[in-house]
């Protein structure tokens, strides 16, 4: 119990440091957001008024104090561009990213672990080598390049190759602006983004999972189990998989940042209005409060995933209970 509280406290402290770091990083940058927001003909007093209205004229320490107070109240400021609260701007984007990232993360994990386990269990076989070549190549490909390849393949390519009409997939947006807006349409729009994110993530996870399974299979008690005549299926389920659970949990926490980073590109390429695309567009618009807000969301997810893995480890591995 005490260790759980301690881990919670560490996670919270970490989160606060990340928040503050982002705040100061953004304020330390050259370039005045006011010059981006005001019309070019604005006079000096008008600029000063705008600066005061955005709370950018106070000393840094005062700005930090006010900002910290607001954060405790759950407020992250007002977007310079949308003129709405950052929480509501993020509130629109987060469900889209969570749905896209969540489904991709789940598929990434299932496919990655399955592929890696097959490779590890049949190490050195032809299947293993073929899958290694495949995963290493996909792992080396940037997600935006994979996204563009899939678009080329499933739009123009599908038409050229004479593939059936249902294989010509939409390459942009969440919904069909003209046609029906049912679930089927949403799913069709989601196929390419989810496929891109899953391919990149699963390739990475398969590499880890293969290593983990190979290491487990070499352990002495696994050899003992095999030697005493335990059926292979039973060895894999009872001896290998049960002992792989802690590793799998760590893998899950490790997979998250990759999927998050990939979602920035995938959302940008496919025009999904999620947190990643919001972050990129806010960066170009010098919309500091939204940039800070999006960073906070990403940091919170990573910290939460690591915390969840830390807390779940003792549940699956009695040796870690203290």
């Amino acid at each position, binding site marked *: 119990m005490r260790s759980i509280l301690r881990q919670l406290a560490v996670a919270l402290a970490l989160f606060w440091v990340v928040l503050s770091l982002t705040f100061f990083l953004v304020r330390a940058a050259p370039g005045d957001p006011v010059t981006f927001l005001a019309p070019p003909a604005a006079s000096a007093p008008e600029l000063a008024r705008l600066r005061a209205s955005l709370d950018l004229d106070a000393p840094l320490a005062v700005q930090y104090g006010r900002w910290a107070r607001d954060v405790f109240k759950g407020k992250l400021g007002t977007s310079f561009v949308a003129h709405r609260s950052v929480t509501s701007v993020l509130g629109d984007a987060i469900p889209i990213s969570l749905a896209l990232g969540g489904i991709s993360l789940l598929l990434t994990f299932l496919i990655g672990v399955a592929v890696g386990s097959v490779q590890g269990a049949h190490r050195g076989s032809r299947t293993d080598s073929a899958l290694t070549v495949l995963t290493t190549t996909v792992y080396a490909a940037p997600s935006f390049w994979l996204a563009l390849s899939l678009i080329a393949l499933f739009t123009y390519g599908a038409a050229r190759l004479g593939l059936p009409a249902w294989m010509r997939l939409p390459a942009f947006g969440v919904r069909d602006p003209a046609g029906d807006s049912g679930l089927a349409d949403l799913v069709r729009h989601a196929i390419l983004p989810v496929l891109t994110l899953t391919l990149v993530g699963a390739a990475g996870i398969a590499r880890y999972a293969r290593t983990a399974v190979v290491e487990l299979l070499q352990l002495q008690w696994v050899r003992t189990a095999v030697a005493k005549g335990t059926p292979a299926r039973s060895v894999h389920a009872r001896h290998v998989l049960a002992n792989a659970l802690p*590793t799998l949990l760590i893998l899950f926490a490790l997979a998250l940042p990759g999927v998050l980073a990939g979602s920035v590109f995938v959302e940008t390429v496919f025009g999904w209005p999620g947190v990643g695309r919001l972050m990129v567009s806010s960066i170009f618009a010098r919309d500091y409060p939204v940039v800070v807000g999006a960073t906070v969301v990403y940091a919170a997810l990573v*910290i939460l995933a690591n915390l969840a893995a830390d807390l779940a480890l003792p549940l699956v591995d009695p040796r870690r209970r203290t």
Partner: protein
Amino acid sequence: MIAFWRGASGQTRTAVIMLLALALGALLVPALASTDPLAIGDALALRLLPPFSVDAAHHFHLLGTDSFGRDLFVRAMLAGRLSLAVGIAGSALAGAVGIAIGAIGGWEGGVLDRLAMAIGDVLLAIPRLVILLVCAALWPPGATMVITILVLTGWMGVARLVRGEVRGLRARPFVEGARAMGASPSRVLWRHVLPNALAPAIVAIALGVGSAVLLESGLSFLGLGIQPPQPSWGNMIADGRELIVLAPWIALAPGVALILTVLSCTLLGDALRARLAGDEFETMRARS
């Protein structure tokens, strides 16, 4: 070096040959090419030629041409200079910083060590791409900026590995022997401990070149890294994005060079790991 080559697997040899070919191509092709990769010539006649085509002036275009009629192969090789340089410099410098911090922290211990590890934890809590995006957006883009951020966000993994090794070596008999012979603490650290602690760090740095190249290309793809007209693999892919349906080779061709580079770095890193026999899982974690 020769011993490494003799003992290398086919996989390692392929990786080394691919990297050498890319580096040589990046150095020589733009210098020897008959067309200028930056100049825009007769754009109407030359633009959007598919791969393996020959134009009216009998110039062969291996990867085709872009929407301004510039040869994509020459441009991709020119881009390779910058992308490779940024990737190698970013990973090597980050590794050097990580080795220094990890070695001193692991050897001395104390407040500074804990502080460095705490800063590392904070930086690891934010996805690296997000830090890169924020910094790239706030400071003027360019190669120096990208390398600086790669170093600032890339030292933690190596520092942790080296710190762990150094702490493990501190109590070993040969270290005590060196101290008993009267060697100063800094001499013991640099001459006796560190050379034995570097193996996992070298693997992480080799693998890090690949991820640094990927991150640079990502920033440039979003328009926050290397700026046109200077080509980099990332901004070349971004150039082809609008024409992905009409002329897919513009976006896909530079990606092939990029993938080959990252693939070679990964294969080389894996081979080094097998050779240096580090803990496979730990070095993989340090990379992410």
